[in-house]
């Protein structure tokens, strides 16, 4: 859970719920929005990091998501969940950012440099290279392969996978972000898992290879 700053809690005694904070912000109390930012920043950061794959971009997405949320707060339906709403804004912005980044890379205006993105460097992540199942997370090769496999997904697939598998979002929410139908969103989740499996099974599975599915025996 996110720990609230005591000073904020004391000055926002009644801000014990998002709905109250939203209402107060709309009434002109900017400090009420601070409660929402402090309450949801970690969750939005986690989503953004998983979608973008680096810290610098994730932090940028978090800031932009809250800025946009503030600017559009008047359009926010009070019955909705602020956390879910700001999540959607962050996911949308992260997709835009990834697309833009891809275009920039394609045009080679400037090579992408993640100055603070060393957390993605497999070498810095190694704690123990022992290939036991318990230590799989620390296997350099596997981690490298996982990052490659995630990066190879399309923006939609990565978004759908992150939102469903890691963030537990409903298919309808994913569909809204992807601007697709629920059925298409579900297929995107399936495609993402299938691609990840194809890429990672050789590094993970010690058992027999996947059989032809849907067959009879």
């Amino acid at each position: 859970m996110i720990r609230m700053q005591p000073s904020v809690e004391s000055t926002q005694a009644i801000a014990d719920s998002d709905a109250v904070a939203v209402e107060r912000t709309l009434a002109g109390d900017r400090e009420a929005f601070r409660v929402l930012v402090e309450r949801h920043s970690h969750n939005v950061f986690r989503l953004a990091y998983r979608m973008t794959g680096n810290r610098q971009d994730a932090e940028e997405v978090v800031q932009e998501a809250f800025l946009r949320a503030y600017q559009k707060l008047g359009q926010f339906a009070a019955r909705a969940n602020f956390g879910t709403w700001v999540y959607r804004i962050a996911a949308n912005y992260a997709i835009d950012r990834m697309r833009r980044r891809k275009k920039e890379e394609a045009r080679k205006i400037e090579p992408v440099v993640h100055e603070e993105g060393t957390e993605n460097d497999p070498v810095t992540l190694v704690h123990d290279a022992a290939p036991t199942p318990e230590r799989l997370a620390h296997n350099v090769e596997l981690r490298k392969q996982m990052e490659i496999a995630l990066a190879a997904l399309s923006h939609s697939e990565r978004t759908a996978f992150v939102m469903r598998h890691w963030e537990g979002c409903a298919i309808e929410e994913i569909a809204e972000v992807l601007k697709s139908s629920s059925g298409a969103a579900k297929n995107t989740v399936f495609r993402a898992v299938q691609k990840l499996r194809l890429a990672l099974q050789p590094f993970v599975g010690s058992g027999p290879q996947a059989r032809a599915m849907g067959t009879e025996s």
Partner: protein
Amino acid sequence: MKHMTEEELIAYREGVTAERVGVARHLAVCEECRAELERIEAVLAALDTLPVPNPGDDYGRRVWQQIAPRLPERPVEWWQSWFEPKRLGALAAVAALLVIAFLAGRITKHDRASGDVVANKEQIRERVLVVAVGEHLGRSEMMLVELSNAAPVHPAQKQVDISAEQRRAEDLLDENRLYRQTALQEGDSALASVLDELERVLLDVAHSPGEVTPAQLEKIRQKIQSQGILFKVRVVGRELEERQKAIAPAPAEHNSSRESERNKA
């Protein structure tokens, strides 16, 4: 026994299947499908071990400190979003084009035979287009000049904030497309060509990051300069001003000579 498909097992694992009970029942009696599900789960479990860095306990406070100075005094009410500059710009462009279409159509309907009226129609159509495009070019020029003059506040600053110019470029893009298409329809290929070049520069700016390094900014600046787009925008803008003055007293006789001037630019 018919086995589950990979899709069915993934849907089951990810909790998006409507047939949850049926799949569970099948898995209870089918060792092969259970093994297959375990293989899928092994991949997903490995992915779950990918770490997410902890941004720190005070992360929320830091985010607030970073965004607070950029927040407007009050959030925008839902109805105010209709008056956002982006929408207003596009609406104004559409309105200008509708006026052209309306006036042209109205005049044509009343007296198709009259040569004077046809000339008037052309003048009105041109005047509205000239005024609208002239203003658009003025705004574009201002944005490009400001972008060219952008610089770090402190010499040691690593990033330059061009997000304001970026947003303006996004707004200008919508208008630019409309005017370029209209210029093409009107047969003004020289104006369409300059608008086309401007559009590419606007696209570049709109797709740049909100904050750039001085080196990135220099590249954007060089690109603007190398294409000479500022010069072209100024020349066409001035020419449109002259055209605006000239439209009322005299028919567009000088169009060909002006067009050749613009082509030179």
